[in-house]
């Protein structure tokens, strides 16, 4: 009569418990958070059997620092930074030895109204889903569908992203589709939405067009950086992105190596980025000559 203390824990179980743990952590820290994906999603937004491997939360923007600091006191550590996590600078990945990975979002890429305004919209209509016996705050099913499809817009070639769009949007009931369209307009998310669902060309005049073209259809690093510069609304922002472009993403390099890179490795990567950029430019020139 012994409990199997060392028995492996199935991923779906660990992930469900992790979601509830993060919800409780938010309460404990007095931080507003919403779980934006995972096993608590409404069937209107997520297709049956959609598996999750980590936790994704959206934090009230004014409380992000408070959450990151507080989480570290509960055994979480950051794998990267907002500046290095993705081209959109929207999230930080944290890790906990018991719960696994947690993506902490300060905004949802593709939503062009201020992040605090978008959060207020999601928070006002939030619902509670029960996970592992704990009430866990989620956006309502309409907002869940919008967030899922906007995520699909930057998941070029992903089979799962295609299934998300098909379920959450293409095959959604008419009433849900009307509510989704209204929310996309309210959040000024039409460009990214079009990148996921079609009709992106209609938004060529928008500053974020090229960024979503690259995110949804792929492109080289140079294209990505040019699109990021174009998408920045201010000159200060454009300058910051331009200056960051040639720098090595040491967080990403650390994840690839499984340890912090040495100075020599960072220097090698720095030089190699220019080599790769030159190769990319040459390849594009060849394509254009043909």
């Amino acid at each position, binding site marked *: 009569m*012994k*409990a199997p203390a060392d028995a492996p824990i199935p991923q779906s*179980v660990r992930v469900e418990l992790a979601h509830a743990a993060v919800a409780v952590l938010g309460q404990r820290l007095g931080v507003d958070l919403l779980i934006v994906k995972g096993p608590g999603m409404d069937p209107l937004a997520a297709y049956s059997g959609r598996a999750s491997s980590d936790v994704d939360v959206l934090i009230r923007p004014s409380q992000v620092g408070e959450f990151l600091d507080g989480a570290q006191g509960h055994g979480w550590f950051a794998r990267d930074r907002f500046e290095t996590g993705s081209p959109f600078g929207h999230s930080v990945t944290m890790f906990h030895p018991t719960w696994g990975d947690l993506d902490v979002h300060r905004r949802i890429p593709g939503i062009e109204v201020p992040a605090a305004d978008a959060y207020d919209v999601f928070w006002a209509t939030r619902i509670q889903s029960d996970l592992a016996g704990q009430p866990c705050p989620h956006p309502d099913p309409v907002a869940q569908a919008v967030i899922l499809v906007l995520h699909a817009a930057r998941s070029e070639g992903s089979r799962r992203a295609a299934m998300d769009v098909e379920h959450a949007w293409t095959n959604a009931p008419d009433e849900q589709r009307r509510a989704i369209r209204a929310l996309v307009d309210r959040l000024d998310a039409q460009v990214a939405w079009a990148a996921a669902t079609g009709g992106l060309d209609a938004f060529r005049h928008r500053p974020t067009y090229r960024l979503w073209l690259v995110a949804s259809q792929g492109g080289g690093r140079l294209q990505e950086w040019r699109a990021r510069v174009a998408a920045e609304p201010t000159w200060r922002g454009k300058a910051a992105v331009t200056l960051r472009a040639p720098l090595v993403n040491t967080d990403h390099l650390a994840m690839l190596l499984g340890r912090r890179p040495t100075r020599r490795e960072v220097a090698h990567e720095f030089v190699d980025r220019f080599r790769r950029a030159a190769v990319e430019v040459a390849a594009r020139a060849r394509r254009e000559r043909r």
Partner: protein
Amino acid sequence: MTTPSGMPFRWALAQPIGIVERDGITYVATFPDGPIVVLDPVAATILAIALDEPADEVTGAVAAAYEKPSDEVEEAVRDVLTRLEADRVIRRDHR
């Protein structure tokens, strides 16, 4: 079962915790820091009985549930409850 001071008590769930059952195995976690404790059906039964009965009657109730003599289940009951208390899944309630 009594505390070292001899005061009777009951076992109660520590809060907050999460419980997931999958394929006959129960996974109990303490929030927000963990750990996750894995309970086979027997351990889960011991926990359920421990939460229902006064602490000093748990062994007898488990023995009755499995139609075994108390001394045959005593060690298992003690092991499971000791571990659950150490992992902060349950606590002693003296009310």
